[in-house]
C-alpha cells in the first residue's frame, strides 16, 4: 500500500480549485433554463445562439481579436529587436534600457491605465483603437523581451561564427541560423502577447470608447448588471479560444519553460 501523500492531496484540491471556474462555466452555458444555475437544468444551445443577437459581444470579440493580433505582431517585432541589441552588444546604458524594457511589469496595470488615459486625452487619442493598441503593445513588450533574452542567453554564438566561416554573410547567418534557433522563444513571445492583450481588462478599462470595447471588458460591464447564462456561453467561447493558444504555447515552448520552471527531469 502506498502511503497517502498529504502534499498530493492538497495539490489535487488546489488544482480543482483553480480549474473550478471552468468546470462550472462550461456546463452552465448549455442550460435550458432562463437563469444561471449549477448544475445546469436541461441541455440547449440557446445561450450560444443568443450571443449572435448581442452586437456588443460580437463586435467586441472582433475588436479583441484584431487588437490582440496586431499587438502580438508589433510587440514581438519591437521586443525581439530590442532583445537582440541587449544580448549581442555590451554597451553603456544597456542595463538601464534592459530595466526600462521590463519596467511595465513592475508597475500596477491600474497606474498604466490611468496615466495612459491622462496622456492620451492630451494628445487626442483617448478612446481610439490606436491608443488601446499602443497601451497593449506596452504591456506585452516586457514578456517578449524577457522570453527572447532568455532564448538568446542560451544561444551559442559560435554557431554564428561557424556560419561566417562557411562563407555566409551576416544577414544570411541571421536568417539561416539565428532566427530558426530562436523561433520557439519568438513565437511563444508572440502567443503570450496575444493572450496578454486578449485577457486584459484593467488597462483597457481606461482606454476604450463605448463603440470600441474589448470582449473581456464587455463581459465585465455586462456582469455588473446582469448575471445570466449568456455570460456563461460567451465565457465558454473565450475559454475555448484561449485554450487553443495555451495548447499552442505548450507545444511550441512548454508552459514550464515559459514561466521559468526548468524541469530537470527531461
Amino acid at each position, binding site marked *: 500500500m502506498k502511503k497517502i*501523500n498529504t*502534499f*498530493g492531496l*492538497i*495539490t489535487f*484540491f*488546489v*488544482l480543482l*480549485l*483553480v*480549474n*473550478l*471556474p*471552468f*468546470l462550472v*462555466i462550461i456546463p452552465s452555458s448549455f442550460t435550458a433554463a432562463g437563469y444561471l444555475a*449549477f448544475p445546469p437544468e436541461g441541455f440547449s444551445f440557446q445561450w450560444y445562439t443568443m450571443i449572435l443577437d448581442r452586437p456588443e459581444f460580437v463586435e467586441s470579440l472582433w475588436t479583441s481579436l484584431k487588437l490582440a493580433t496586431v499587438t502580438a505582431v508589433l510587440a514581438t*517585432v*519591437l*521586443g525581439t*529587436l*530590442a532583445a537582440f*541589441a*541587449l544580448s549581442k*552588444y555590451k554597451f553603456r546604458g544597456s542595463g538601464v*534600457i534592459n530595466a*526600462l524594457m521590463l519596467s*511595465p511589469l513592475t*508597475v*500596477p496595470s*491600474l*497606474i498604466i491605465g*490611468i*496615466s495612459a488615459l491622462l*496622456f492620451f486625452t492630451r494628445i487626442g487619442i483617448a478612446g481610439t483603437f490606436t491608443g488601446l493598441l499602443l497601451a497593449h*503593445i*506596452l504591456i506585452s513588450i516586457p514578456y517578449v523581451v524577457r522570453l527572447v533574452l532568455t532564448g538568446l542567453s542560451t544561444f551559442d554564438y559560435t554557431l554564428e561564427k561557424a556560419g561566417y566561416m562557411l562563407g555566409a554573410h551576416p544577414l544570411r547567418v541571421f536568417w539561416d541560423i539565428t532566427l530558426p534557433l530562436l523561433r520557439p522563444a519568438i513565437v511563444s513571445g508572440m502567443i503570450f502577447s496575444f493572450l496578454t492583450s486578449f*485577457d486584459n*481588462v*484593467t488597462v483597457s478599462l*481606461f482606454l476604450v470608447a463605448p463603440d470600441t470595447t474589448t470582449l473581456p471588458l464587455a*463581459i*465585465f460591464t455586462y456582469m*455588473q448588471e446582469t448575471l445570466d447564462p449568456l455570460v456563461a456561453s460567451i*465565457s465558454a467561447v*473565450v*475559454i475555448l479560444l*484561449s*485554450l487553443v*493558444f495555451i495548447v499552442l*504555447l*505548450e507545444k511550441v515552448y512548454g*508552459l*514550464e519553460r*515559459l514561466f*521559468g*520552471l526548468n*524541469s530537470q*527531469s*527531461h
Partner: protein
Amino acid sequence: MNKRLSITLLTAPAMIVLLGVFILPMLLMLMLSFQDENQAFTLQNYTLFVQDSFYVEILWRTIRVSLWTVLATLLLGFPVAMYMAQATGKMRGIVTMLILAPHLISVVIRNFGWVVVLGEKGWINEMLMKLGLIEQPLRLLYNELGVVIGLTDSFIAYMVLAIATSLYAIDPSLSKAASILGASRIRTFFTVTLPLCLPGIIAGTTLVFSLSMSAFVTPALMGGTSVKVMPVIAYEQIMATLNWPLGAALAFLLLGSTILLVTLYTKLIETKRYKEVFAS
C-alpha cells in the same frame, strides 16, 4: 555595420513606445496629482488622505484583504510546490500545466465562475441546503471573503511558481546528508528545506501582496459595492467623478504604501545571515 547605429536602430522602436506610452504619461500623472482645480500646485490630494478617515479605512481594508490573500496562497501554494519538487517528470508537467493554464484565461471569466459557485443560489449554498446543513444561504460573495477567494485563485500560481523555483534549486543530496546525520524528515524539512527556500517564499509573498494591493477586477466583481478597495476608489475618481488629480494621487498613494510595506517586510526578514547565505 556601425555598432552604435545598430544598437540605436534595434532599440529605438521599443524605446519610443516605452517613453511615449509609459514614462511620459507617468510623469504627467505625477504632475497632475499635485494640481488643484485651477491647475496650481497643491498637496491637498495627498493631505486629504490623512485627514479623511474614509480613505484610511479603505487603505486598511485593501491591506487586510491583501494579507489574507498572501496567507491563503502561501498555505495552499506551499504544499503544491513541495509536491511538484518531489514529483517525477510527467506528473510535475501535468501539475504545472493545470496550475498555469487557468492563469492564461481572463480574470473576468474566472471571477464569473466563482460567482456561479459562491452566489446565494450558487452551487455551494444549494448543496449545503440540500444536505440540510444550513437553512439560510451563506454569504460567500460581495464581502471580503469573496474578494480573498477570488484573489487567491488569481494569484496562487505566482506563489507556487516562486516557491517551486527555489525548491528545484535545492540540491537533493542535502536532505540525504541531513538524514544520514540523523535528522528526522520533519526536522530535515524545518532545518534544511525551509530555510533554503526562503528566497522563494519572500519572492512569492511580496509578489502576491503587491498584486493583491493593486487588483481591480476581482474586488469590483466579487466584492460588489460593499467592499471598496483603493483601486476601485481610484477608478471611480477617474472615470465617474472625473476628479483626475485625486484619482492619480490615490493611485500613487496605493503604490507608495505597497512599496513601503514590502520594503519593511523584506528588511525585517532578510537578516544579516540571510544576506550572507543568499548573496549572489
